[in-house]
């Protein structure tokens, strides 16, 4: 359908539209008009993504100059695929003259088609395998020697030849390209899909990639550097964006890291000796370059680009590298001293917390390394590795981590703390010393994004309380709004279960969670539900260890065997491959009517981005309140920081954080208004007002008072009633005066109505 919002013709890929989608678009358009940032909360299951894509694409078509580019950031690669699929649907409804180019971008691991590089297991080894074939000095060597003597990548060579005749030669025809499409295209044309995609993001109208490509300075520095100001940046599913931001600037150092770094330094020393003997001029040339400053970062060959400096671009000083680390061997000895110092710090018996200022002072006095040297560590290392022509970068990750740490500690004085723990709190008998540099200020990492781009849109199903996010991220949205959901029928049914069938309270509170009575009551709840609910059921637990524990107990008690009589059981594990296969099987079990239960973890990978819509999830049970591990030092330090700078109380933040996770977990069951699902919050603490009120409005509005304090058998009764009600036919367009589906005429009428009012 096609309709007007003010003066913009919006192309929407469906025949009908939800009223909240329309409102969402209206708000979004205002934000784009104002060239400001906005914060929009809209319930899951109301087609947020398609509304967003549709409006921004249409807006870009209506205002062709300056060309507006959409940078769409997703949490995960599979969400990227979903977004691209929606985009493809939208594209088929755009007028044919206005076709634009949209593509997804990921790492080499996900885009490479070279069988040699692809045979490596991890991302880093694929990266380094690629470098071994495509680094500028490797290619130079290959050009000098007879063909075949030095292996290169045929895909990259072909792409490079094609690209050398100008960017138009490799320009992709308009369309939507998923990672799979890029790979297929690469195979077909014999071009390297990764570098092709890297090149194409400059010309593309829509780029879909991961958060890190904008937020993590290391990645953003090489990928997103050239994006112009006329960009609309969208962070979808952004309820966790503060965590992503602080993670981007946090590093931890373990004993293994230090040992690895020592080995790396040893190897580099050997390389330097070798170069001194054969090609001393290279080292001298590097020295001269460093005198002039680190300006070389701009004109490196495409393939030599390495992860950039971990510090934010504005914080990097445009000055020459300090004299005392310009010479390669001097720099190595500085690193050696640093590693030695860190080793010494790790041998502590007690937990230590320090501010970066104190830490830098102590490094300076004990190891003789001043702040400026620390700050240049990362770039200096990068330069040295290029000079030494090191291609197997995956071997050098340890020293990279150390330099990363040094640069961050040397750059930031505020919003960070350094925590040294000799052992894990939960396993005090196993020594596992770790030194963590943890960032507390989420606004640091996202600040350059807000400054650089004209509109940043932060949206998710759960952004409650919506006034907290601008404070955490330190920005001023022009629009900040939370939408409710207009439902044709009550297709979601949230319940709070506080008691088991024996009327004893259930909870995952620390003192109660291992009580066999609670474990049994949780098990009985699941057992009753698997017998009553068709197709898929998803269970979320508060942590991996808790899930392992309770599943083992259920196994011992025989509850698991009874559950298996009704449905197949799949479990999320720490192994991503296994979890992916389990999910795939789970879906197949739901498809074929066998029915299945999926056990997952709140804050886990599955909870982040997998949808359990339609028959893939008719019921989701949240066992417990997913609080963070409150004894964690990092969390304590962060809470302290939040209290001091934003006056946010610890308890409030913890509850907010737990409830947004819970809401996110249960929100995955519903996808559209034709869909339906139940949500059980199984913990007595959810019945308390201070907890419950933190849930997003669209859940709260359906949480009836009668459903606030249920026992297992009452919940079962409600579930049965609900399922029976949902099975009845209904009128999709909504009844009475409340319309829940709008057609093109409805929208036109609405538009006229607005005209009349003015």
């Amino acid at each position, binding site marked *: 359908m096609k309709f007007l919002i003010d003066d913009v013709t919006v192309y929407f890929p469906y*025949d*009908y539209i939800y009223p909240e989608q329309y409102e969402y678009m209206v708000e979004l358009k205002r934000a784009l008009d104002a060239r400001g940032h906005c914060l929009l909360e809209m319930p899951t299951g109301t087609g947020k993504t398609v509304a967003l894509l549709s409006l921004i694409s249409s807006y870009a078509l209506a205002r062709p100059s300056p060309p507006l580019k959409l940078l769409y950031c997703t949490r995960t690669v599979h969400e990227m695929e979903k977004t691209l699929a929606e985009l493809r649907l939208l594209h088929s409804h755009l007028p044919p003259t206005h076709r634009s180019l949209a593509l997804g971008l990921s*790492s080499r691991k996900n885009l490479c088609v070279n069988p040699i590089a692809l045979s490596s297991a991890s*991302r880093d080894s694929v990266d380094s395998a690629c470098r071994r074939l495509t680094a500028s000095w490797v290619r130079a060597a290959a050009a000098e020697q007879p063909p075949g003597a030095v292996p290169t990548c045929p895909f990259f060579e072909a792409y490079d030849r094609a690209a050398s005749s100008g960017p138009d030669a490799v320009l992709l025809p308009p369309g939507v390209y998923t990672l799979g499409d890029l790979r297929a295209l690469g195979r077909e044309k014999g071009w390297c899909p990764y570098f092709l995609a890297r090149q194409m993001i400059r010309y593309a109208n829509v780029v879909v990639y991961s958060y*890190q490509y904008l937020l993590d300075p290391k990645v953003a520095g090489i990928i997103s550097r050239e994006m112009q100001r006329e960009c609309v940046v969208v962070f979808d599913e952004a309820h966790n964006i503060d965590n992503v931001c602080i993670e981007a600037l946090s590093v931890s150092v373990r004993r293994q890291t230090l040992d690895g770094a020592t080995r790396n330094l040893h190897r580099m020393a050997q390389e330097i000796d070798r170069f001194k003997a054969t090609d001393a001029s290279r080292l001298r040339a590097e020295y001269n370059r460093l005198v002039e400053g680190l300006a070389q970062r701009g004109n490196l060959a495409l393939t030599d680009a390495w992860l950039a400096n971990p510090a934010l671009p504005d914080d990097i000083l445009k000055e020459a590298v300090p004299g005392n680390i310009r010479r390669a061997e001097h720099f190595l000895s500085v690193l050696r001293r640093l590693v030695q110092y860190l080793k010494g710090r790790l041998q502590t018996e007690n937990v230590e917390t320090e501010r970066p200022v104190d830490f830098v002072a102590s490094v300076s006095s004990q190891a003789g390394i001043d702040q400026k040297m620390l700050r240049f560590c990362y770039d200096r290392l990068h330069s040295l590795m290029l000079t030494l022509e090191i291609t197997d970068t995956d071997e050098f990750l340890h020293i990279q981590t150390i330099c990363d740490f040094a640069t961050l500690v040397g750059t930031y004085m505020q919003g960070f703390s350094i925590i040294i723990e000799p052992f894990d709190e939960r396993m005090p008998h196993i020594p596992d010393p770790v030194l963590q540099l943890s960032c507390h200020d989420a606004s640091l990492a996202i600040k350059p994004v807000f400054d650089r781009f004209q509109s940043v849109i932060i949206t998710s199903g759960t952004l409650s309380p919506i006034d907290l996010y601008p404070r955490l991220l330190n920005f001023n949205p022009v629009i900040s709004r939370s939408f409710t959901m207009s439902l044709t029928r009550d297709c979601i049914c949230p319940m709070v279960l506080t008691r088991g069938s024996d009327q004893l309270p259930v909870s995952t509170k620390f003192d109660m969670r291992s009580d066999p009575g609670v474990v049994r009551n949780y098990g009985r709840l699941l057992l009753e539900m698997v017998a009553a609910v068709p197709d898929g059921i998803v269970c979320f637990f508060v942590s*991996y260890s808790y899930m392992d524990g309770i599943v083992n107990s259920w196994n011992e008690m025989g509850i698991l065997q009874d559950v298996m009589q009704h449905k*197949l059981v799949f*479990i999320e594990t720490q192994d991503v491959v296994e979890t992916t296969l389990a999910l795939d099987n789970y879906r197949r079990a739901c498809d074929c009517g066998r029915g299945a239960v999926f056990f997952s973890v709140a*804050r886990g990978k599955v909870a982040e981005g*997998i949808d359990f819509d339609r028959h893939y999830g008719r019921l989701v049970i949240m066992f417990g309140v997913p609080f963070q591990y409150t004894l964690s030092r990092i969390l304590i330090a962060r809470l302290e920081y939040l209290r001091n700078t934003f006056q946010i109380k610890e308890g409030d933040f913890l509850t907010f954080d737990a409830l947004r996770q819970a809401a996110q977990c249960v929100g995955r069951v519903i996808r559209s208004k034709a869909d339906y699902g139940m949500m059980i919050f199984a913990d007595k603490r959810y019945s308390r007002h201070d907890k419950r009120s933190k849930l997003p409005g669209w859940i709260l509005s359906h949480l009836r008072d009668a459903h606030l304090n249920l026992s297992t058998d009452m919940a079962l009764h409600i579930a049965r009633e609900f399922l029976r009600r949902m099975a009845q036919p209904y009128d999709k367009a909504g009844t009475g005066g409340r319309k829940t589906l709008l057609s093109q005429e409805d929208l036109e009428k609405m538009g006229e109505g607005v005209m009349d009012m003015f």
Partner: protein
Amino acid sequence: MTQDVHGFTQLSHDLVTYVLYLCVKIFPGLQPMMPGHKFSKDGSKQALLNLTQDSEKGGGYIFEFDNFSNRNVCRDFVGKVLGKFQALMSSKQNEQPVPEKPAAAIHGEQLSTTEMEHRMKLLREDSELQKLHKQFVIGGVLTESEFWATRKSLLDDDAQRTSKQQAGFKSAMLADVRPLTDGRTNKVTFSLTPEIIHQIFAEKPAVHRAFLNFVPSKMTEKDFWTKYCRAEYLHRTKNSVAAAAEAANDEELAVFLKNDDILANEARRKIRRVDPTLDMEADLGDDYIHLPDHGLPQDGSKETADAENDIARRTLSQDLNRHAAVVLEGRALDVELGDTRTVAEALARSKRAVSFAETSDEKTNQERLKRVSRMTEIEDLQAPYSLPYAPLCIKDPREYFDLQQANALKAFGDTDAGTKPIDCSLSTEEAYVHLMEQISEMKVRGLNNPVVQPEAALKVLNGLNQYLSSTKYHLGKNPQESVLDRLPNRTKDELMHHWTSIQELLRHFWSSYPITTAYLYNKVLRLKDAMAQIYHKLQETKESVQSDFRHQVSRLVQPMLQALDAAFAHYDTEQQKRYNKSGNKPNGFVQ
């Protein structure tokens, strides 16, 4: 007359035949009794099959089998045979004794038991069909094969459906064998059944491979399973040190404790065909934050695997996932569980077949893409998909026929139902004026002599009343109501029966033309006689019904008669032609 036939327990295969023999031999002789059979549940102590001859008297045979699979074969067969006799018996109850096994004998057609079986079942399920069958086949008008020839689709259709159902894996985790201790000694007992072993093979390919490699060349089957149980026990007690020590000493034992490399390979292969919107592995490749030691440590992410000893840390979660995946895949094994070796080999074969089938994945890729795009669409924002539909199939031709009849009747009723068309288009005013005229006329002429004879008037009035009441009664109802419903039940049934019979006969009649063989000629003759009979019967029915319904019945019968007439006419002309032809021949038939 209970006879316990113990002592046959060893004759496994012969016994099956024997039971069948008994069934066939004994039951037909005991006509009034309704034989039944009972059996013990799978997995109970004894495999029993109890054949009762008479539920009241309790006479019967109890068979004890040495295993369940044989028992099940027997049970299934006995069930079928009994079903067949029941059908026969029920038809015998209201019929004169007819030759047993009517059709096969007459036409000399060789029918397999299953085929026979199947036809019996169809007859049993469909009483109408059974009636027809009785009338024509047993009455000798049609042969068995002729009767079924027109119902081939029925036979084929069902043949597919009745293929032997394959049982999948049990949902219970059998492979998770739990040891039993007797409490007094330190002995631990594991018990394995063929079912469990099959599941172990399916879920743990490494054990399966080891079995194929080691047994019987390297060790006996018993040794193999002892080793396996030992490894399981070590795993269960979570004694990794002891496990490592044992594995170091005993390389066969180590096989069970190591990571399953086949599974790992399989996972790598499968992950490539996973839906991209689910693929979390791709994430791992993209996530720059998850460089070693970057970001904040997450809950549980500290559990790094011990790379040094490759004793697998198999967790319950992995077992559960694996089990569920295997159950979902289903079992494609057509051998009897029992001999471990054959099971293992059959499993290996089926696996090869699967991996071979998987190689063509271009199409699956396409399908996956289509699925993804389907998944992304929001279903209620657009017109519903045209769902795949089944073509209309008139299940009961009777309803269709009724409807047509009702419509025809209505059409008749308007034109020549016997009543004069009354012009009702007068307005009230006109009617009033007319009435007044009549009255005034009456006043002038007076009622000196009656207009009509009172008897005649009464008769007419009664007739009219009756007609009116009946039509009112009929017409008030919805037109979909069958005309037949108004007829007395007996007449209705008769008509229905005639109708189906005529259909059947006509179908055969018309399909016999052109007559090319003597056989067909005979058939047509037989058919014609049967039709003539029905023709008479129809006439009789028509005459016998009450006057009320005669009209409707005759209307119902009309098309049947017409159809029959057409058939007769055709027959006569054909006959004429034939006669002429043969008459023209100089050396014609002797007449």
